[in-house]
């Protein structure tokens, strides 16, 4: 029992740590998919671009923080190009994302020079943070708390990443909330909601789409840079299916935590990202499944999340119809019993009148 608790805690801790970093990517996907109504597949490429730039620069001796920020700008640029392809090149939105994703695959390989870069034993943004936390002694303090509640055998290596990432992710969340309430932010939201309307209020929807996609992919690449540093490696295939993971986080979050306001929805997306990681880590604990099945699991989660609401709605509608039919039948039955056939004739008359009315109108 105790052993189970301990592995469970380790799994939950790991899910939180990864989930909160991936949440930044999910916020990016939320910007493109929900706010701009643009299913942007650039994400699969820009995530790797972020990781690649961070890895190459860090291995080249650059400051890890600087490398992470630079990754963010690279993502912004990639998103802008997708935006230009769509708005000025007039290429279908899905296709412009796919084109950019494919182009980025080669670009990422060029950046890295080889398909995989390891950053083990190198100073990354996170190892710096870990060292800092050790010095202050926060890790010891939190770990002693854990030992007190009987989880002493599963102490995480560091609390630093989790705590810092909660702060970073929430700063980004608050920035997103603020930005979407500004005059420019409102115009971006309207671009995804009703293009014709916001154009009639003197907004350049092309520019706004480009800006929105840029910001979205900036967040995605930022997240990619952080994931690469957390895992200690960058791989040219690390972005495969990232858009679906992002979508899963957005959809799960929205379904569980609601979408009443922007502030609530961005929080929901972060929650969705953590829950997605939890679901995956729980699924992987089943002996039958192995890590290679993760993408399939993700796809199934998204398919269920996308189809369930409609199926539920349809079955509800069916029940409602059946109930109404039953009511009507019983009504006719009783009226036939009491008043004879007249009542059944009455609707016929009404129909005739309606018909006449329509005619005279036109």
């Amino acid at each position: 029992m105790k052993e189970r608790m301990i592995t469970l805690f380790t799994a939950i801790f790991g899910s939180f740590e990864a989930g909160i970093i991936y949440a930044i990517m999910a916020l990016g996907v939320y910007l493109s998919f929900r706010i701009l109504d643009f299913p942007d597949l650039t994400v699969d490429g820009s995530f790797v671009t972020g990781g690649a730039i961070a890895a190459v620069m860090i291995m080249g001796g650059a400051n890890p923080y600087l490398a992470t920020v630079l990754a963010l700008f690279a993502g912004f640029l990639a998103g802008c190009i997708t935006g230009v392809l769509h708005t000025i090149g007039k290429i279908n939105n899905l296709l412009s994302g796919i084109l950019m994703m494919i182009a980025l695959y080669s670009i990422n390989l060029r950046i890295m020079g080889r398909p995989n870069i390891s950053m083990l034993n190198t100073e990354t943004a996170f190892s710096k943070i870990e060292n800092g936390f050790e010095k202050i002694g926060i890790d010891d303090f939190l770990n002693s708390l854990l030992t007190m509640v009987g989880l002493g055998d599963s102490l995480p290596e560091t609390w630093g990443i989790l705590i810092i990432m909660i702060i970073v992710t929430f700063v980004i969340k608050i920035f997103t909330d603020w930005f979407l309430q500004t005059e420019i932010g409102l115009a971006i939201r309207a671009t995804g909601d009703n293009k014709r309307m916001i154009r009639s209020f003197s907004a350049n929807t092309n520019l706004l789409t480009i800006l929105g996609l840029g910001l979205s992919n900036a967040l995605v690449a930022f997240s990619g840079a952080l994931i690469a540093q957390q895992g200690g490696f960058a791989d040219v295939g690390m972005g495969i299916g990232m858009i679906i993971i992002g979508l899963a986080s957005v959809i799960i979050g929205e379904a569980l935590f609601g979408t009443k306001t922007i502030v609530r929805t961005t929080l929901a997306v972060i929650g969705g990202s953590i829950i997605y990681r939890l679901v995956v880590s729980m699924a992987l604990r089943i002996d039958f499944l192995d890590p290679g099945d993760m993408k399939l699991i993700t796809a199934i989660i998204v398919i269920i999340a996308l189809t369930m609401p409609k199926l539920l709605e349809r079955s509800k509608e069916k029940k409602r119809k059946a109930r109404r039919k039953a009511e009507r039948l019983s009504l006719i039955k009783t009226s036939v019993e009491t008043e004879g056939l007249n009542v059944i004739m009455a609707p016929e008359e009404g129909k005739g009148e309606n018909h006449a009315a329509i005619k005279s109108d036109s």
Partner: protein
Amino acid sequence: MLQLNQIHKRFNEGSPDEKIAIDRINLTLKAGDFVTVIGSNGAGKSTLMNIISGGLFPDAGEVYIDGKNVTNMMEYKRSRMIGRVFQDPMAGTAPSMTIEENLAMAFSRNKPRTLRRGVTHKRREYFREVLETLHLGLENRLSAKVGLLSGGERQALSLLMATFTEPSILLLDEHTAALDPSRAELISNITKAIVDRYKLTTLMVTHNMQQAIDLGNRLVMMDKGQIILEVNEEQKEQLTIEGLLAEFKRIRGTQMASDRAILS
């Protein structure tokens, strides 16, 4: 205020489907003019609206707004000067955003958009004030999503959003046609009140002859891409539907063929 100079527009040029949509139209609106435009389907009314708003560019001719040549100006730039209400009540507002956010976007029409907050305390008070003039109770629902409003309410809001920044030109594109009769009348009345209040230079397309006669100080009748009849202020006072139909018959030699021209 608005001047159209020898506007010409053809669709599908060079193909067997070639069609002259606008045929050398000249039209001038003085400041404060409220011109209603009627005509059967395919007369070119909507094309004319789109050429003024910048949704389409003319093959020949010029468009002047406030004395400035805007013929080749992009739609989004031009819309700083033009307020527009569409036929579809869903078209003029953003459904997933709140009433106050919609108003804030309309408020930014003639100013550069910045990173300042869209809905501030001060603006909210102002929005409440202008919404009160609609008498629909929307001033108490500022943070409700616009998608929850009825068609009539949305159209009233669209109308307010198009006008409260006092654009140089107001374009109304059959903006009551998709509403039921009582709602259409409500929007008609609100239109009249708003145009009077801000003294807006207005061009309104309608299928409803009675509405065309009741509203505005001038009337224009279009057919096959041309303006075939212009009614000035004095003539318009005595105008009737019968008079209009007779006039059409006299000019064109046929009955006005329109299944949608409502004679109510």
